[in-house]
């Protein structure tokens, strides 16, 4: 059973516009959430994270929003750039489960000129 879901396998956005990547989770015990970015033939790289005590975290062009009541988080990229084209994974960690991250299935973002 997939505890972290990314229902959109792909997303295409024009350069300069906003990219919004979504992630839903089912386990209310998750208390920490992360986004990773992955280019082909490379390992994932950490992008941004958010704790459950916050509802927003911003880092440059990247902002993550957390809606605990809806069990939903989203990653906003503004403005989108061609170099942002990659697969994005959201991940979650639960209370008392300090050593394990649960990853979503990923969303492939393509930013076109």
């Amino acid at each position, binding site marked *: 059973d997939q505890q*972290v879901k990314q229902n959109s396998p792909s997303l295409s956005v024009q350069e300069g516009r906003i990219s919004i990547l979504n992630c839903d989770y089912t386990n209310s015990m998750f208390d920490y959430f992360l986004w990773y970015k992955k280019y082909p033939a*490379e*390992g994932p*790289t950490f992008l941004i994270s958010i704790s459950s005590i916050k509802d927003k975290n911003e880092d440059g062009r990247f902002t993550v929003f957390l809606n605990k009541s809806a069990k939903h988080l989203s990653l906003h990229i503004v403005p989108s750039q061609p170099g942002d084209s990659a697969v994005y*994974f959201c991940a979650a960690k639960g209370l008392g489960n300090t050593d394990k991250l649960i990853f979503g*299935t*990923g969303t492939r973002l393509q930013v076109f000129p």
Partner: protein
Amino acid sequence: DAGITQSPRHKVTETGTPVTLRCHQTENHRYMYWYRQDPGHGLRLIHYSYGVKDTDKGEVSDGYSVSRSKTEDFLLTLESATSSQTSVYFCAISERDSTDTQYFGPGTRLTVL
């Protein structure tokens, strides 16, 4: 870039043969992880280690074993490879637990014929 290497980077083997993948780090991080990435499943944790000789199972540990005799090396062994173990395998490290940023290696593409 975090000093993580994986070897081999590519391997083709036959069903029933043993296979060992190696992850080597130069960061002296305590935690090391093995993930597999498959289409439609994202990244799934196989095993992880929280110190020398200290390991635990992840989400998809059946058919895999691990060993960590030194801080810098974490080995993943498929005792008898099956076609279902065809995948891309990623090693990751973190300084403390999974709340810390996990740094990923470049991956090993394993094909079991």
